[in-house]
C-alpha cells in the first residue's frame, strides 16, 4: 500500500504524510495520548533512561570491586547500589521492556488492528509505571534500600530501629506493587487484543511468533504478578506495623516469604525472556529472508515455557532449608523448562540453514542472542542440579548466569528489536557501520565481564560482597578474586563504551538519519505494510494477511532502498 512513497535524499526533506508522530503536536498530545504507538514510544524512552541509570549503578559496583578494600564507596552504599541496580533493572527495565515498549508499538499493527483492546488502560499502565519510578526515586531519597532485590525477610523487615518509618524499603516495595499492576494491565490488554481484535483471516497460526511470545508473557503477567503484589504488600505491612506472618519471633515463617517472592519472581524471569525470544524468531527469519523453521514448535514452546515456569520457583531455595522433598521436586521440574528452550534454539539454527543471511545490526544482535542465551541457559543446568547448586548458590556463578540470561538474553534481544523496528518507529535509518561496531563492543565486553564471573563463582566468591579482603580473609583468596574481578571490570568498561556508542548513533539518527522506507529489511509481517512511521490508525483498510514468513512475495527496490510487493503479485496483496 505504500510502495509508491517517494524516496528523497536527506538534503531536501519535504513534509511527510501525516503519521502518528506529527498528527498532533505539543507535549499534551503525547502525555494524554491513547495511541498505542505513542505509548510504546514513551515506554521505550522511559525504560531506556532507567536502564542507563541502573547501568551507571552497575559501573559503580564494578569499579568498587576492581580492587580489594574500599575503592570508591563504603559497605552500606555498596549494598544500596546493587539493590537499586537489581531492582531497577528488573522491575523498571526488563519486566516492562519488550512487551510494553516494542510490543505496544507493533502488536496491534502486526495483528492488523487499529489499537489495543483498551487504549485508556494502556495509558493508565504507563502512568502506573511512572508512579512506580517516582516511588523508586523516593526510596532512594528516603534513606535508600539495602536488602537486595529479593527483599529477604527478616533483614528487610528489621532494618531500622524505628518501626513504622516510611523509609526506603517501604517505598521500594510499594513501587514494586504499583509496577506489578502496570505489568498486569499491559499483559491483560495484550491477551484481550490478541483474542478479540484479530481481523478476519488472521488465525492463531498466522500470527507472527512475536505475538505468540507476547501472548505467553501475558499469561505470566496476569497469573503471576498479583502474587508479588500481595508479597510486597505483606512485607510493607510487616515492616511498618509488624504483622508477623514472616517474623519468626511472632510465629511467622521467613521461608514462607521466599516462597511468596519466587512464586512470582521465577515466572518473572520468563516474562523477561519470552518476548525477546519472540523478537529473535522474527529477526532470524526476516534477516535470513527465509521461512521460520518449525513455526508450531516455536509457538507452543513459548506457551510451554510459560506454564512450566510456574512450577519451578523452589530452585532458588535449595539451601534455604526448604524441605528436601520440595527440593527434589523443584529440581526435577526445573529441567522441563530447558526442553522448550532447546527447541527454540534448534529451530532458530535450522531457520538459518539455506537462508540468505544479511549480517546487519539487528541480525548481529540476534546471532549474539543465540550465542549468549545458549551459555545462559546451559549454565542454568548446574544450578538446577541440586548437588552442584549447593556449592554455586549465592556465588558469582549465579550472578553470571542471570546476567547472561537477562542482559545477554533479554536485553540483547531487545536491542535487536529496537534496531529492527527503529526505522518503523522513527522513520529514520541509523548508521549501520556504527551499529555493527557497537554491537561487537557490547558482545565482547559483555563476555569478558560476565564469563569471568562464572569462574569467580565456581571458585567460591559469594555475591553481594562489598569487598574480598579484610581481617578474616586469606591473602591467597583475596589475590585470586582480585585478578578475576579486575578482568571483569575491564570488560564492563568495554561494554559501557558499546552502550555509549549505541546511544550516540541512535540519537544522531533521529536528526540526521536517512528517511526509512516502509520495508527496509524485507519483513513480511503486517507492520511492514504500512508506511514508516505508521499513520495514526495504522491501516486505512485491513491489510493483506498471509503467511507472515513467506518472503517470496517481496522484491528489492534499489531506488527506494527497501522492499515492496512483487509487482506481478500486487493484485492479491490486498493493497488499496
Amino acid at each position: 500500500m505504500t510502495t509508491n512513497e517517494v524516496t528523497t535524499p536527506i538534503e531536501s526533506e519535504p513534509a511527510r504524510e501525516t503519521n502518528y508522530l506529527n498528527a498532533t503536536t505539543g507535549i499534551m498530545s503525547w502525555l494524554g495520548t491513547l495511541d498505542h504507538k505513542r505509548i510504546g514510544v514513551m515506554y521505550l524512552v522511559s525504560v531506556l533512561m532507567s536502564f542507563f541509570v541502573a547501568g551507571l549503578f552497575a559501573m559503580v559496583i564494578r569499579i568498587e570491586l576492581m580492587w580489594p578494600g574500599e575503592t570508591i564507596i563504603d559497605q552500606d552504599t555498596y549494598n544500596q547500589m546493587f539493590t537499586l541496580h537489581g531492582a531497577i533493572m528488573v522491575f523498571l527495565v526488563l519486566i516492562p521492556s519488550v512487551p510494553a515498549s516494542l510490543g505496544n508499538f507493533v502488536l496491534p499493527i502486526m495483528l492488523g488492528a487499529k489499537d489495543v483492546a483498551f487504549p485508556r488502560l494502556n495509558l493508565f499502565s504507563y502512568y502506573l509505571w511512572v508512579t512506580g519510578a517516582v516511588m523508586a526515586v523516593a526510596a532512594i531519597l528516603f534513606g535508600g534500600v539495602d536488602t537486595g532485590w529479593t527483599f529477604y525477610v527478616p533483614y528487610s523487615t528489621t532494618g531500622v530501629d524505628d518501626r513504622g518509618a516510611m523509609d526506603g524499603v517501604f517505598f521500594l516495595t510499594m513501587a514494586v506493587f504499583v509496577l506489578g499492576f502496570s505489568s498486569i494491565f499491559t499483559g491483560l490488554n495484550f491477551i484481550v487484543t490478541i483474542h478479540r481484535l484479530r481481523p478476519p483471516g488472521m488465525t492463531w497460526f498466522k500470527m507472527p511468533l512475536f505475538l505468540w511470545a507476547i501472548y505467553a508473557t501475558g499469561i505470566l503477567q496476569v497469573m503471576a504478578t498479583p502474587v508479588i503484589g500481595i508479597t510486597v504488600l505483606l512485607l510493607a505491612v510487616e515492616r511498618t506495623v509488624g504483622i508477623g506472618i514472616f517474623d519468626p519471633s511472632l510465629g511467622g515463617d521467613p521461608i514462607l516469604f521466599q516462597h511468596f517472592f519466587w512464586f512470582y519472581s521465577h515466572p518473572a524471569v520468563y516474562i523477561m525472556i519470552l518476548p525477546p525470544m519472540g523478537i529473535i524468531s522474527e529477526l532470524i527469519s526476516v534477516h535470513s529472508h527465509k521461512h521460520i523453521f518449525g513455526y508450531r514448535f516455536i509457538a507452543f514452546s513459548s506457551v510451554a515455557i510459560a506454564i512450566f515456569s510456574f512450577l519451578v520457583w523452589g530452585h532458588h531455595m535449595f539451601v534455604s532449608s526448604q524441605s528436601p522433598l520440595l527440593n527434589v521436586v523443584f529440581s526435577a521440574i526445573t529441567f522441563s523448562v530447558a526442553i522448550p528452550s532447546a527447541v527454540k534454539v534448534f529451530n532458530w539454527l535450522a531457520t538459518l540453514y539455506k537462508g540468505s543471511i544479511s549480517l546487519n545490526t539487528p541480525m548481529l544482535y540476534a546471532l549474539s542472542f543465540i550465542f549468549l542465551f545458549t551459555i545462559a541457559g546451559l549454565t542454568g543446568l548446574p544450578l538446577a542440579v541440586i548437588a552442584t547448586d549447593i556449592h554455586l548458590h549465592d556465588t558469582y556463578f549465579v550472578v553470571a548466569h542471570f546476567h547472561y540470561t537477562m542482559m545477554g538474553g533479554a536485553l540483547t534481544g531487545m536491542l535487536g528489536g529496537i534496531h529492527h523496528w527503529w526505522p518503523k518507529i522513527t522513520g529514520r535509518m541509523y548508521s549501520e557501520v556504527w551499529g555493527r561496531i557497537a554491537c561487537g563492543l557490547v558482545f565482547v565486553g559483555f563476555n569478558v565481564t560476565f564469563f569471568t564471573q562464572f569462574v569467580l563463582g565456581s571458585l567460591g566468591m559469594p555475591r553481594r560482597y562489598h569487598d574480598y579482603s579484610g581481617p578474616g580473609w586469606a591473602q591467597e583468596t583475596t589475590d585470586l578474586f582480585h585478578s578475576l574481578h579486575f578482568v571483569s571490570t575491564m570488560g564492563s568498561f568495554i561494554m559501557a563504551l558499546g552502550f555509549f556508542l549505541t546511544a550516540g548513533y541512535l540519537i544522531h539518527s533521529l536528526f540526521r538519519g536517512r528517511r526509512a522506507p516502509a520495508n527496509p529489511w524485507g519483513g513480511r509481517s503486517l507492520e511492514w505494510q504500512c508506511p514508516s512511521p505508521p499513520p495514526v490508525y495504522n491501516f486505512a483498510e485491513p491489510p493483506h494477511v498471509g503467511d507472515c514468513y513467506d518472503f517470496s512475495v517481496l522484491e528489492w527496490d534499489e531506488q527506494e532502498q527497501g522492499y515492496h510487493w512483487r509487482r506481478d503479485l500486487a493484485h492479491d496483496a490486498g493493497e488499496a
Partner: protein
Amino acid sequence: MILTNIMLAAAGTKIPGSIFGMPEQASTIAESIDWIYNFVNWICVFFFVLIVVVLVVFMFRYRRRAHIASTGGPTHNTPLEVIWTAIPTILVAPMFYFGFKGYMHIATPPENAYQIQVTGRQWSWQFDYPNGAKIFDGTLHVPVDRPVTLTMTSEDVIHAIFIPAFRVKQDVVPGKRTQLWFEATRVGVFDLFCAEFCGTSHSQMVGRVIVYEEEEFEQVIEDAANWIERVPDDKLHLAGVRLYNQCQQCHTIDGSPLIGPSFKETHDLFTSGGTQKRRLKDGSSVVVDEAYLLNSILNPLDQITVNSRTGKPYPPTMTAGLGKQLGDRRRLALARMIMQLDEVVTPDGRLRKVTEEDLDLVENPDAD
C-alpha cells in the same frame, strides 16, 4: 571457562581445582560433586560447541549475496523436531538423577558425627563445642577424617555457612535449626563465608575452617575451652585483644565511629574519670566506668549511645546474645581492653600482637 583459565594462566594467575574452576577438594563429597559438575558441564560444552559451530558455519555459508529471498530450505520437519526435543529430555534425566543422589548424601548427616553448634549473628559466628569451648573469632576447628555436623541457628537475620573447599552451604535461619555436615579429608586452612546477604558487613562475616589431626584437634578444643581462665588477671586486657575479632566489624580502635561507637572514644571517656560523660539516646548521660562497660557488653540495648559525630543514636544492632555468650571472664577481658586501650594499641594505631608468652600461657601452647 577453559578459555578464561588459559587467559588468566597467561596473566600469571594460578587457578586451583578442576578445569571448570572448582576450588581444591577437601571433603569426602567434594570429589563426587565435582564429578557431577563436570558431567553437566561437558554436556553443556558439547551443546555449546555444536550450536556455535553450526551458527558460525551457517552464518558464513549462507551469507547474503543478493537481495533475494532464500533459496528454499524446509519450513519444518516434524521427525527432526521431535528428535531434538527428545534428546535434551533424555539428557536431563541423568543430570537430575546425579544431582538428586548427591543431594541426598549431603542432606543426611551420619549418625555418629561430631556435633558443633553454630550461632550466626550480625556479623560474626559463634561455634560451640561439646566440651564447652566457645569460639567467637570465626575460626571453625574440625578434626580430619571424621564426620562433623553443624547445628545452626541465627539470632537475627538469615545467614549462610559456605565452605567452598568442602562444597557445602546451608542457610542459617532465625527460628529454625538447620544442619550441615561434612567430613574433611585434608589437614589445612580453608575459607568460610557467609553466603546469605545479612546487611552492612556481610562481606566481613568470613572466617576459616582449620582441619587438624585428631589428637591435635582435641588439644585445641581443650585449650579453647579454658585458656581465658588461665590468663592472670593483670593480663586480661591483652586477652581482650584476642577477643576483639568479633567486635571489629562494628567498633574501631582509632576513634572513627562505625556501626557502633569506637573503643577509642569509649576509652577516652573512661580515662576522663567521669568528667566527660557518654550521651545516651534518651537524652541522659552516663559515666563510663568498669560497671558501665561490663553492662553495655552484657546488655547493649540498655543504654543506647549517641554517635558523637552525627548526633544520632547508634542502630540497635548488637544483640544481647553475644554479650551473654561470652561469659564473665571474657566480658571482663574486653572491658579491660577498652579501659587500657593505650596499652594494647601500638603507636601507629594498630593492635598489639599478643603472643602466648604475653598471656603467660607458654607451657601449654594455645591455638585459639
